[in-house]
C-alpha cells in the first residue's frame, strides 16, 4: 500500500472537483474492496475522496412509483429497508446473499457496482493480468479458472463481476445516476458494466471523475414471483459460481412478463432479453424454462475448470424460474435444513 492523502468531501460537486484536482484519485465509500486492493498493491491511488458527508445515503420513493437508492446507502440498510423488502424482495435477497453482515454494514450501494473482479490473478502481482496491467496477458486462460466467466469473454480476459446485488439490479432494469465534470447523466443498468473485449482494464462506462450518486428502481418490482438463487462453494461469504435472478409476472399459468439475469458467469451481470422473450406469453412450465436456459447458454464457452458452470447455470436457471413461479423463492438451497427425513 502506498501513501495517500484523504479528504472528506462535503458535497458531490466538491468531490468531483477534488477528483479532477488529483492525478490518481479514487472515491471511497465503505472501502470494503478498495482497501483490499490497496493492501495488495493492485490499486495505488495517491488520493482518496471520502463520500460519507455528501448526503447520498437516503432511500426514497420517486413520483413515478419507483425507488431511489442513494449511492452511499449501505447494503445492509438497503436490504432491510421496508420499501425494498416489500416492493423489491428480489433485490433484498440478492444483497443478503452477498458478503457477510459485517461487510454489508460497511459496503455502499454505489460501491457495490464499483467492486472489482475476484480473479486470483488480478490480485496477485506475481502473475500477468490484462485487467491489472493491460497487455501483460491473461493468466486465467489456461490457468486455474474455476470461478471465471463462460459468457461474453474475450481473449484478453475471462474475469467475472462478483456482485450479487448487481444481478438483481440488472433484472429489475435499474438506472444508474451519475455526476461528473460535465454534469449529471443517467446510465441504463445494462450499459453500466462492460464486457472485457480488448480493454478489460475498464470494468464500466464511467468517464474519468464521474461519481455514482444513486440508483433508480422502476415502479415494477416483481414482488410476487421472484427468486435469487446463488450457488457457491459454501453457504455464506463466498462469491457465486452461478447465481440467477428470476422475476416473473404471471397471469394464471401464463408468463406475462419475465426478467432473467445471471451472476458469476460474465464480466457483467448477464441479462438476456432474448431468453426473456422466450418466456413471455408462454406457460410457466419446466419446458419453457429449459428453452430459456438453452437460449441464455447458447454460445457459452468453458475454459476447463469452469466448464461445469454451463450445465450448472442451465439447471440453476430452471430451478430459479420454478421457484419464482411457485413462490418458493429463497436465496439458496438451504431452507430444508431444519427438516428431518
Amino acid at each position, binding site marked *: 500500500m*502506498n501513501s495517500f492523502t484523504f479528504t472528506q468531501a462535503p458535497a458531490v460537486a466538491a468531490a468531483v472537483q477534488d477528483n479532477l484536482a488529483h492525478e490518481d484519485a479514487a472515491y471511497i465509500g465503505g472501502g470494503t474492496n478498495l482497501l483490499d486492493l490497496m493492501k495488495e*498493491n493492485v490499486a495505488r491511488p495517491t488520493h482518496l475522496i471520502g463520500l460519507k458527508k455528501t448526503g447520498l445515503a437516503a432511500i426514497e420513493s420517486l413520483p413515478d412509483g419507483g425507488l431511489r437508492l442513494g449511492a452511499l446507502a449501505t447494503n445492509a440498510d438497503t436490504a432491510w429497508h421496508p420499501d425494498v423488502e416489500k416492493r423489491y424482495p428480489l433485490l433484498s435477497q440478492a444483497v443478503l446473499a452477498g458478503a457477510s453482515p459485517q461487510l454489508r454494514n460497511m459496503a455502499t450501494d454505489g460501491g457495490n457496482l464499483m467492486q472489482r473482479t475476484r480473479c486470483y490473478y488480478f490480485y496477485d*502481482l506475481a502473475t500477468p493480468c490484462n485487467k491489472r496491467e493491460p497487455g501483460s496477458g491473461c493468466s486465467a486462460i489456461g490457468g*486455474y479458472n474455476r470461478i471465471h466467466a463462460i459468457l461474453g469473454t474475450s481473449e484478453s480476459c475471462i474475469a467475472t463481476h462478483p456482485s450479487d446485488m448487481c444481478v438483481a439490479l440488472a433484472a429489475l432494469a435499474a438506472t444508474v445516476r451519475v455526476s461528473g465534470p460535465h454534469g449529471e447523466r443517467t446510465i441504463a443498468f445494462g450499459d453500466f458494466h462492460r464486457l472485457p473485449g480488448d480493454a478489460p482494464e475498464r470494468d464500466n462506462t464511467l468517464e474519468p471523475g464521474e461519481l455514482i450518486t444513486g440508483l433508480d428502481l422502476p415502479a415494477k418490482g416483481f414482488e410476487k414471483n421472484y427468486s435469487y438463487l446463488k*450457488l457457491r*462453494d459454501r453457504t455464506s461469504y463466498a462469491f457465486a459460481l452461478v447465481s440467477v435472478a428470476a422475476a416473473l409476472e404471471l397471469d394464471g399459468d401464463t408468463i406475462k412478463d419475465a426478467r432473467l439475469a445471471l451472476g458469476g458467469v460474465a464480466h457483467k451481470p448477464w441479462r438476456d432479453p432474448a431468453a426473456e422473450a422466450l418466456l413471455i406469453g408462454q406457460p410457466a412450465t419446466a419446458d419453457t424454462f429449459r428453452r430459456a436456459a438453452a437460449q441464455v447458454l447458447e454460445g457459452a464457452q468453458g475454459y476447463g475448470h469452469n466448464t461445469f458452470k454451463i450445465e450448472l447455470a442451465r439447471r440453476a436457471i430452471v430451478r430459479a424460474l420454478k421457484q419464482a413461479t411457485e413462490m418458493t423463492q429463497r436465496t439458496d438451497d438451504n431452507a*430444508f435444513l431444519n427438516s428431518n427425513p
Partner: protein
Amino acid sequence: MTLQTDYIGKPTNRVDGPAKVLGTAKYAAEFNVPNLLYGYVVSSPITKGNITKIDAAPVLALPGVHRVFSHENVPSLAWFDRSYKDDVAPGGSPFRPLHSAEIKFSQQPVALVVADTFELARYAASILHIEYEEEAHETELAKHLDEAYQPGKGKTGYQPPKSRGNFGRGWAQGVAHMEGQYSHHAQHHNPMEMFASTVEWLGDKKLNVYDKTQGAFNSQQYIMKVFGLSKEQARVVSKYTGGGFGSGLRPQYQLFMAVLAALELERSVRVSLTRQQMFSFGHRPETLQHVALAAAADGSLTGINHVAVAETSQFEDFTENVVGWSGTLYDCKNVQLDYRLAKLDVFTPLDMRAPGAATGSIGLEIAMDEMAYAAGLDPLEFRIRNYSDFDQAQNLPYSSKNLRACYREGAAKFGWERRDPRPGSMRDGNLLVGWGMGGGIWDAQKQPAQAQASLDADGHLTVSSGSNDIGTGTYTIMTQIAAESLGLPLEAVTFVLGDTELPEAPVQGGSWTAASIGTAVQEACAALGEELLKQAQKMDHAAFKGVKIDDVQFANGQMRLRTDLTQAVVLRDLVQASGQPKIEAKNAKLPGLIDMVKPPKYSMHAHNAVFAEVKVDPDLGTVHVTRVVNAVAAGRIVNPKTARSQVLGSVVWGISMALMEESVMDHRFGRFMNHNYAEYHIPVNADIHDIDVIFVHEEDAEVNPLGIKGLGEVGLLGVAAAVCNAIYHATGKRVRDLPVTIDKLL
C-alpha cells in the same frame, strides 16, 4: 465449609476465557515494547531461480526506513545444517532465510524491510526492486510419481510402515475385492492469528522474544543455535496462540527475520506475516493414495494394500504416517504398505492436525465403505467383523481399546439401524439423503516434561511448565489437575505456561500435551505435597508424626490424615509457619536414555467412530452435512467441556476437508493462487449443523497415571471419509478426489 476441589472429569469453563474476551490476553504481535521497529517481508514472485539484483537504494532513501536485509548483507551465521534443525525438523537441510540468491519455492522470503512504522515498511517493500533469473520449476506431484522414493527415518517419531503376511495370497483368498485411487490437494493450516514475532532488545544481545509458536523452547533452541545466543540472551515468550494446528511446530521464518534485525540494528523489531504469506510455508502435503482390499465370504479382510505418494520439498524429507494405520485399525494377516515421497519445488510440508492419519483415513475409510458394498455388508457390521483386538503391527496388546463402544453408542445416537443401504434410496422431499461412516486411530503419546508447583502464604498455588496453549484448553485442564492434586479450589490455582524461563516442556503437538504436561503437573504437585508434609512434621504437628505421604490426602484446602479426616492442617498455614514466602517443588528430572529405550509393553491408541448425514440436491449438486455423531475413545476426559470443543472443531475440520479445503496451485507459476480467506474455503457457521460428541468410557492405567490419551487429533479421523461415504449413499457417486465440490456431483 466444604470447598469443591475435585475437578478432573468435570466440565469446567476456560480459565483463560475472561482474558481472551476482555482482550487482555496478548498475542505475539501485540507487545508494544518501546522504540519498536517494524519489518515487512518481501516474498519471491518466482518459484525457482536466482536473485540477480537488489536495488535497495531508493528504499533506503525513504525517511524512516532503517535497513533492507537480504542475502547480500546478512552477517555470517551458523554454518551447519544441524544449527538450523529444530525439534520437529524432518531429515534434510532446513531452509535458511536470506541465505543465498537461490530461490527454491514461490513466495520465498527474499528481503526484510525495516522501518519506523508498519505502513512505511509495507510501502517500502512494495517498491523494492529485485531482479530474478528464472528457471523451470516442478510442482506437479502426478508428474513425478516415477521418481518417488521411500524416505528414511529422518523425522523424530517417524517409522516407515511395516508390511506383513502376503498380500498377493490374501488378495487371491478374497471373494470380494475393491481398488481405488484417492487424493487430496495441499491444505494450509490458516490459524486465525498470523505468524509474528516481536523481539525486544534489552541491550548486549539480550532479547525477549514474543513469538507465535507451539513450542517456546523449540524457538529458543533455534535462535540460540543460529545466532550464537546464550539461553539468557534468548528468552522466548508465547502465552497465547491464536490457533496452531501444527503450523507453529517449527520456528517460522519471521522469527529468524525479527531476531536478525534486532541483533543487527540493536533495536526492538516486530515482523508479522500477511494472510497471503501464511501460504508461503508448511502445509499438509498433497497425497495420492491407492488402496486395495479383499474380503472372504464372511466379510473378514484377507488382504490390505495401501500405498501413498506425497510431495516434499527439494531440501527436506517431510514424512508422516499415512499408511501405517491401515496395518493396525483392522484385523488382517496380509498387509502390504508403502509410503513414498516425491521432491518438488515447494516449501517443506508440515504437520497439520492429525498429520498422516487424516490423509490415510480418507483412503482407508472410503475404501472400507467400498469394500463393504462389494461384500454386501453394512459398513458398520463390516468394520465390527474386522475388529482388531490385538495390535498386529506392533505385535502388542492394546493398553485399552473401546472402539466397540464408539461403534455401538455412535450408531445408537445416530439411528444407524434405520439406514437403507441402497444408494439413492433415502429422501427428504426432493433432496437425496445419505448416511455414511468412518473412523480412525491415533497414538496416545507422552513426552518428557517438567513442571513446578509453588504454594504461597496466601494459600495460592502457582504451577508452571513452559508448554503452550494453542486454544485447546491447556491452561484450564492443568489448573484442574493441580487443584485436584492438592485439594484446592480452582480460584486458588494459577497455571503459567509459554515462557522459556519456566520448566522445560516439549512442543504442543501430537495430542500429547494433556498427558505429558498433565503428568508433570501431577508429579510436581505430589512433590509439593511431600514438602508440605515435611513442613507439617517440622511443626511438631502430632497427628502427622511419622506419617507417610500415602497416609494423607489433600482436599478442602487442607492436608488431612486418611485414617482420621478431622486431623487436618490448612495448607496456607504450613507456608506461613515455614517462615518462607512459599514452598515449592518440581517433578523428577527428565527420564534418562535408559527409560526412553525401554521396549513398550502395550500398543497405546485413541480411537473414534463417525456417523454423518448429508443432504444433496440432485439437480444442483449442493451438499449439506446435516448431522454428525462422533464417538471418541480417548481414555480419561479431564474436561468434558473443552474436550467437546476439541471434537466439535475436529468435525468442522473434517467437513472442511471433505467439501471445501484446497490450496490450488497453478503449476505454470508453481504458486498457490487462492492465498486468502475469501478463496481458500473453510466452513462458515451456516455450513455446520447438528454435531453430537460422545466420549465412551475407557479406563487405562498404562498410558499414564491420569489415564489420558489426548484429543487434539483423533476427533478429525474418519470425518471426511464419513461425509464422502454419505455422499455416495445419497447419490451413488463415488468421489475419490477431495474436496467434493459442486462440479464433481453434477
